């Protein structure tokens, strides 16, 4: 408990100071990075987190937002544990950032790798990634209800859900669907979201819960069909993307009887024990990144949920999210035994 408490206090202090620093931005402007920033991606190349990190790197370089350069480093080992342990070990180093996905919560719970978000200083939430239920366009299911009815009617394990990784967000959603339908689906883990989408196009699996950006190309090509989105409200983007359909036309899963909501954090953290001015600097930097047209384009293309937070509010959100994941993982039986 002692460690937890200390970690919590640390991050709370950091978060509070970050908040204060943003309020008094000009005064706290003193800190600037003095060497190359390592931007850790706790996932492989080409995935959603990696892409976002590289976009941020590109935006920072293109707009000259920082005097020092930023380097993206992938540390995907141990379901991202490698990357998080690197941050945990870099206590007090203000030249390291990490972009997180849900494995921030799920990896320590599922594997017992010793780290938690409390070993890090929250910087800011960049966006939330949406999840959409997809089926092959040639399948007979037009709505989420068609699909869940079919699952209910079939024997357990007949329907196959493909997803990225094991005991992570995709499988959490799958288990949640299982609970609604009362029938177990077979979950097949793959390495990356793009691969999952193509496996669905090739009909090797029956459905996926790909993020919008992972499957949009196949949707536009008429190979996949979105059934519903796992959010409380429909997506905001109203441009016609596939024929006469827009992201905004996809109904929520809740309206289709699948009462499941899941959003994934795309957030920035840095090591614990860093000067509060440094955290303030990055909060400000990320804010500048979010104001660029390139970022807005990415948010638009990927139909992201553009909730952003920093400071106290963010730390609080992360804490709640961890609790929620613990419950979800517990219910799904994904917690590591040790």
């Amino acid at each position, binding site marked *: 408990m002692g460690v937890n408490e200390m970690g919590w206090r640390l991050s709370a202090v950091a978060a509070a100071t970050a908040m204060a620093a943003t309020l008094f931005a000009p005064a706290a402007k003193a800190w600037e990075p003095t060497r190359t920033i390592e931007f850790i991606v706790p996932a492989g*190349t080409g995935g959603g987190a990696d892409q976002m990190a590289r976009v941020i790197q590109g935006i920072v370089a*293109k707009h000259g937002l920082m005097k020092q350069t930023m380097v993206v480093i992938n540390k995907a080992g141990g379901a991202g544990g490698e990357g998080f342990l690197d941050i945990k070990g870099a206590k007090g180093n203000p030249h390291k950032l990490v972009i997180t996905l849900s494995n921030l919560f799920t990896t320590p719970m599922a594997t017992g790798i010793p780290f938690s978000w409390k070993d890090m200083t929250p910087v800011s939430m960049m966006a939330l990634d949406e999840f959409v239920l997809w089926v092959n366009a040639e399948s007979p299911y037009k709505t989420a209800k068609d699909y869940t009815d079919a699952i209910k009617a079939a024997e357990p394990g007949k329907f196959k859900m493909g997803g990225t990784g094991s005991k992570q967000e995709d499988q959490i959603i799958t288990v949640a669907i299982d609970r609604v339908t009362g029938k177990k689906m077979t979950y097949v883990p793959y390495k990356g979201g793009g691969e999952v989408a193509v496996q669905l196009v*090739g009909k090797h699996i029956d459905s996926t819960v790909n993020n919008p950006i992972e499957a949009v190309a196949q949707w536009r090509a008429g190979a996949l069909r979105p059934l519903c989105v796992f959010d409380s409200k429909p997506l905001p983007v109203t441009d016609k993307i596939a024929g006469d359909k827009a992201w905004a036309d996809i109904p929520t899963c809740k309206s289709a009887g699948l009462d499941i909501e899941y959003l994934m954090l795309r957030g920035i953290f840095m090591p614990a024990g860093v000067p509060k001015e440094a955290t303030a600097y990055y909060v400000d930097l990320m804010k500048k990144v979010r104001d660029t047209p390139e970022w807005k384009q990415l948010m638009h293309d990927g139909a992201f949920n553009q909730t952003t937070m920093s400071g106290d509010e963010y730390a609080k959100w992360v804490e709640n999210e961890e609790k929620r994941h613990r419950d979800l993982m517990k219910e799904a039986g*994904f917690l590591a035994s040790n």
Partner: protein
Amino acid sequence: MEGIADLLHGFGVVLSWTNFVYMLIGIMLGVIIGVLPGLGGANGIAILLPLTFSMPPTSAIILLSCIYWGALFGGAITSILFNIPGEPWSVATTFDGHPMAQKGQAGEALTAAFTSSFVGALFAVIVITLAAPLVAKFALQFGPAEKFSVFFLAFCSFVGMGKEPPSKTVAAMMLGFALAAVGTDTVTGGLRLTFGSTELLSGFDFLVAVIGLFGIGEILLTMEEGLSFKGKATGINPTVVWQTWKMLPRYWMTSLRSCVIGCWMGITPAGATPASFMSYGIAKRSSKDGEKFGTGEIEGVVAPETAAHAAGTSALLPMLALGVPGSPTAAVLLGGLLIWGLQPGPLLFVEQKDFVWGLIASMYLGNIVGLVIVLTMVPVFAAILRVPFAIVAPIILVICAIGAYTVHNNTFDVIMMLVFGVAGYFLKKCNYPLAPMVLAIVLGDKAEEAFRQSLLLSGGKVTVFWSSPLVSAIMALGLIALFWGGISKGLNRVFARRRAAPL
């Protein structure tokens, strides 16, 4: 032939002086990246990617893809000269390339490697030009069972061919599989064989093992025999390129087969590394000089290099047409496309004609430019062997250490590299074959993953591996490859006995 017209249009887009300059810069950078084991094509592209955002996408992708070609060319250089594969797909090139250098034929080996790379890439680009949509459809057929069968085939066509005692081959190979299993189990998400060590989370990386077993191991063997490289006497011979070219047409069958293997493995996407191993294995079996493979046969350089380059090139197709990267480098390029607002996928070919055909045209030009550049450098590269061992050896050690470090940015890997190096020395002296071990480390977890995904999909029924014509055909090919080796060995033994009997 709509493709041809599109391609001509593409050449029109690409042919400008600025693009040509980008091409030159890209190739040069790529060769450097390929030579240094610490840098992969993915590094170079990832790092230059942000700089290219202010360029038009076509110019940017030319610059970046040329780095990719350069890296493919460059990987062969250190493999041949120092037995250190700069890139994973050049491991198979060391098998005959380095012995050639030791015999004083470094120039020939380099020329053969570069030329074969070019042939492989050219073949793959032609396939892309003519059959892109068709090929993309073929790639869609590959589910986990099909992928497993491809790995199975790659493995079968490579193993069981050495002169080493079978029990040693088996021990080395299975040890490779065990090493590959360390770390995260991708199917269950749990950890295994880490024994609580956080260092082992990410398992044993193939590159660390290879740099140690081959690179460091080789230096130790060289030290044992005195302070010099065996191929020291190589002279600088500017005509070596022409002389080698005169010999190469003899191996057209090997080249063609390697091209096909490479394209297939690149598209499916199994990748360039298995392609190079598989191609080497098949060439060794089907060549009449197969017995001499491993001692410095030029055909043993042609086969893996052709296949690796064909695979590396064709791996870009699934990326463009399906959005699935066939290699880490392709994955980073994919990220780049998204940043430029280009959505990879089936519609890219329809909506972004300029871009796609510009890229394809740059593949032709980039490879030609690359070939010219690297061939003119052959005498220079070969001359590196003339640097005294006491200077070059520590530099190689340092470069190996950097290579091992950069895999995961972890000094633990540098320690592992040394351990692998010492192990490689003992294993080699005790006649254990290293190649099957390395192949097992590369393919081990991928094959296991595909196997278990297949079983998840089939509900635990093994019959999934002969459930469709495609899977059955590939599995059957694999079994033939496996037993053909045994049969030919058996036949050899019968013949040998007959010959021995009268004495």
